[in-house]
Each structure stands twice: as structure tokens, then as C-alpha cells.
């Protein structure tokens, strides 16, 4: 009896948390007429903004995956000096305010930096470009991919890799035919998390590129200029798209 009573109270507390997550979203759904949602979806600015968000997030996820997956493998397989520091650095973007991350990135790519000047010499301004948005998205979301992939690689028994080496495979072949396929499920989870997190990023993106407007910035812009009523349909539409994409 005692056990079921405590389970009931746990379920009640858990229910409150679920309600806390679901209630505002449902509130948004119920307060947005379907006709408004359709008309918002037909707006060119909204469509362009959502497409821009999706493709930049996808591109930044894929580009940074190429850099991050090998690093995740090294972190899963080897011990080396300052490994804990490296792990701490990877988690940094999670703990720092995203607007601060945006400021940091801006200081890295603005016109008076080495990178900014180099890009400028080719007639390309990084600030306010899709490239800057991709950097901001990747900066805040990359820990999700690295950590998931690292756990995925760590769960692959070293013995299987040794067996493959013993069967004459080169280390590269072992990585591509054994380690990567066996860690793939975790890597895909990490990719989806990184993509979704990048897509929903506002704080860092708004600092490095207000324009072109990605969906979270557009929602903020509509809210700022026209108020809640006008921001809500865009927000709901973007939530639906984000859920569908993930």
C-alpha cells in the first residue's frame, strides 16, 4: 500500500511537470485559428525564413559532423593528458548564455578580425550571412552531437575492433566497417539533436545575423513589431515544422 501511495505521488508530481511542458503549447494551438495558421504558412517571408532555418541547420550539422565524429571516437577510445579539460570545453556552449556565445562569435568573425578581413578581401562579409548563422547554430548545438557520438563509440566493444584488426583490416577500415556502423544509432540521435537544437537557436543567431531572418528571429521580430497575436501563428507553424523535421 505504501509503495503504491508513493508511486501515486510520484505520478502526480510527474504529471505536473508534463503539464508544465504541454500546457503552454496546447494553449498556443487552441488560441490560433486554423485559417490564420494557413494564411501565415502562405506568407513568402515565413516560408523563406523556415526554409532558411532548415537548410542552414542541416548544412551546419553535416559540416560539423565531419569534424566532430572523429573527435568523439578519440574521446571514447583513448585517454590522454587534459582529456577532462577537452570534455569541459565541449560542454561549454551548454552552460554559457547563448547571447554571450553570439557576442563571442561576433568578435571572431567581425570585419576587424583576421577571419573577417580575410573574408572581406574576397568581398564576403561574414556578419549577417548564412555562414554566420551556421556558425552560431553549430556553436550552441555541437555538444549534443559530440556527446551522443562519444557514448555511441564507447558502447562498441573494443574487442570487436581488435577482432577486425586481427582479421587483417586496416584501422581506417575498422573505423568505417565496425566502429561507425555500431555507433550509428547514437550518432544519428546526436545529429538529430544537433539539427533540432541548431534550428531553434535564437540568442546567438540574433547577435551575428538579424538578417537573413531565421524562424526564431522572425518570431521575435513579429512579436516585437506587432505583438503576441501576430507572433503566435509563426511560432506554432515553426514548432510543427521542427517536430516534423526531428
Amino acid at each position: 500500500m505504501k509503495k503504491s501511495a508513493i508511486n501515486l505521488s510520484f505520478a502526480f508530481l510527474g504529471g505536473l511537470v508534463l503539464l508544465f511542458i504541454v500546457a503552454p503549447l496546447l494553449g498556443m494551438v487552441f488560441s490560433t485559428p486554423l485559417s490564420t495558421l494557413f494564411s501565415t504558412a502562405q506568407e513568402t517571408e515565413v516560408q523563406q525564413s523556415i526554409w532558411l532555418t532548415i537548410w542552414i541547420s542541416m548544412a551546419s550539422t553535416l559540416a560539423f559532423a565531419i569534424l566532430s565524429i572523429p573527435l568523439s571516437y578519440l574521446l571514447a577510445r583513448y585517454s590522454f593528458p587534459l582529456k577532462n579539460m577537452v570534455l569541459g570545453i565541449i560542454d561549454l556552449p551548454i552552460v554559457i548564455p547563448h547571447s554571450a556565445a553570439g557576442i563571442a562569435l561576433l568578435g571572431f568573425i567581425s570585419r576587424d578580425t583576421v577571419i573577417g578581413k580575410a573574408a572581406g578581401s574576397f568581398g564576403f562579409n561574414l556578419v549577417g550571412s548564412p555562414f554566420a548563422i551556421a556558425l552560431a547554430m553549430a556553436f550552441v548545438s555541437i555538444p549534443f552531437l559530440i556527446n551522443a557520438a562519444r557514448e555511441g563509440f564507447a558502447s562498441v566493444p573494443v574487442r570487436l575492433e581488435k577482432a577486425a584488426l586481427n582479421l587483417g583490416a586496416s584501422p581506417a577500415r575498422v573505423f568505417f566497417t565496425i566502429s561507425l556502423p555500431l555507433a550509428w544509432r547514437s550518432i544519428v540521435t546526436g545529429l538529430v539533436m544537433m539539427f533540432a537544437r541548431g534550428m531553434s537557436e535564437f540568442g546567438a543567431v540574433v547577435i551575428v545575423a538579424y538578417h537573413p531572418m531565421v524562424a526564431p528571429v522572425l518570431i521575435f521580430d513579429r512579436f516585437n513589431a506587432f505583438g503576441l497575436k501576430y507572433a503566435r501563428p509563426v511560432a506554432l507553424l515553426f514548432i510543427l515544422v521542427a517536430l516534423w523535421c526531428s
Partner: protein
Amino acid sequence: MLKLTNISKRWEEFTLKDITLSVGKGDYFILLGPSGAGKSVLLEVIAGLIAPDGGDITLNDANITQLRIQERDIGLVFQDLALFPHLNVHHNIGYPLYRKGYKSREVNRRVVELAQELGISHLLKRFPPTLSGGEQQRVALARTLALNPVLLLLDEPLSSLDVERKAEIRRLLRDLNRKGQTIVHVTHDYEEAIALGNRIAIINNGAIEQMGSPQEVFGKPTSSFVAGFGGVRNFFKVSLSKSANSKFKKARVSENLSFYLQSDDDGNGYAMIPENEIVITHDNPNTETPNTFPGTVIDIYPHRFGCEVVADIGEKIFAIMASTQLQAIHASIGSKVWVSFNENSVIFIDSN
């Protein structure tokens, strides 16, 4: 073929100490020892998975100590088999063939050939987690054989199999060896070692205790550890001296126990008394043998031939008795009994 010279390796809790051994072409070499003796580590050192701290490994007269794992042409079947769970049986077996530059058609032909040889043709499309222990064992063997290894290393290949599967795999391994495959097989099972090996090395605490043919090792064990592995329980280090009865020698085990045996040798050595030659009686049997001692039963274990009785006669001595015999003498733990054995039943091994 394979020569290990003074191989040493510090590994976690123990150390491999100066392992020197050689395996001839076509040998079925057994490394026999208890769990944690260092057998598997030694196997992984030979395969190149673990680098030794010192010593040399030569294979067909070439020093391979520093050679990379994938260049050694040594196949290792791991104790846990290490089959790739995401590849079906066909791709598991074919895995080593792609490195050798085989074309797809050749890989298929070779895989089918090996699968037929090992009786797993019907499993080619299945994935390892769906196979039984015996089937997985065959797949692991087929995969390693696809490598066409100069030397095949087997780490406890029969340990997880039931009796029927064990017999099957034993037959298979024997056939492979008969066809010329050199095998080094690690096990803790004495029966397995006897059934398969033509040469045996007993390994304990990271060192080789004894090496030779099964007859040499178990017929003339040089330590109680080796004797114990051979199933000999009554194994004593003795020093022989002449006795009043010139027919027999007096073998001194310790200040608590001396007995008589028949031998032309002198000096130090080992004495073995088969368990079934020990007679335990309630009263003094008053036989002619001087090897009659009063003792106390300190333990009784069930045994496939009845019971194993452990008695203290100054040293522990083990006897096999039928359960009815045990009941007849009313022996239980703590009982006072008489232990006797014939001088001729004691086997002496000269250690000089």
C-alpha cells in the same frame, strides 16, 4: 614455426614472466592453466593485440614482435567470439577476404566453401545474435579460417558449449589440425587438453610450469600444481632414503609423514598415489604393508564413482570410495580411521 623467447608483460594484476616456448608446424599446442593464469594475455601477445614489455616472438623464423596485428597472419578466435553483430554470417566470414583483394565472386565462393566445411551453409543470411553458442563458434572459426592463417589461436573455444556441441567442435578442431593447421589452444580444462593436444604447456601465475607431450606432463608432473591439473590429488615432494627392508625405499614427505615405495632411484623426487589405491578402514587392517596410518576424516565430497574422502594422516590424503563402503565403515567428518596403501602403488618421479 612459432617461438616465444623470454616474453614478459606486466598486465593489470599479474605479470607474464619470461615465457619461452616453441610450437612446431602442424602441432596442436595446448596452453593449460587456471583462470587468471595469463593464458589469454599470452595469446593476445602472440596475436599482437598486446605488446610485450620484453622478449621476442618469431614466426617461421621472422621476428614479428613489432609487427602490426593485421600483418601477422595469425588468426585468433576470441573467447567471446567477437562476431560482428551488424553483419550477417556471410559478411562475417567474408570480412577478412576483402583485404586480400578478392573480387566479390571469389569472396562468395570462398565463404560458401568454408560454410560447407563447417556445416553452417544454412546460416549464411542469419545475424550472429540469433545463433546458438555452437553455431556462433563455427561462424567465428570459419571467419578466422577465411584469413588462411599460418597459426590459429583459440581462446577457450569450448568453454561456453554444452556437452554435445563440445564433442562436435572438438571433432572439427581435430580435423583441422589433421589437415595441417597449426593450432595454439588455451583452456583450463584438463580433459580438453588431453583430448586435443599433442603438446601441452601448463601455465600458472604468468609462468610456464611444465611443457611437453601430454604423457610427459601428466605422467611425470614436476609440481603439485601440474599434478593437480592432471587430476592427481596425492602428489608429494619426497626425499628417498634406504630403509631396513631393502626391497623398499623410505620416502619422507615431512616430519609428520613418511611412507615406503618401490624404486631403484635415490635422492629427491615426487611421489604420486592414485586415489583409488588408498584404502580407508574403520579398524587397523593389520596388513603386511608398512604404509598404514591412523588418521582423521576431514572432508567428504560426492564423486562420480561414489565419494572422495579427505583424511589427515600428517598430510592431507585423498581416497575414492563407493558410498556403500563409506557407510559400512561409518565414516563421517571427524571420524578416526585407518589409511593404507600398497608400496607398489606409489609412483616415484625422479626430479634429478
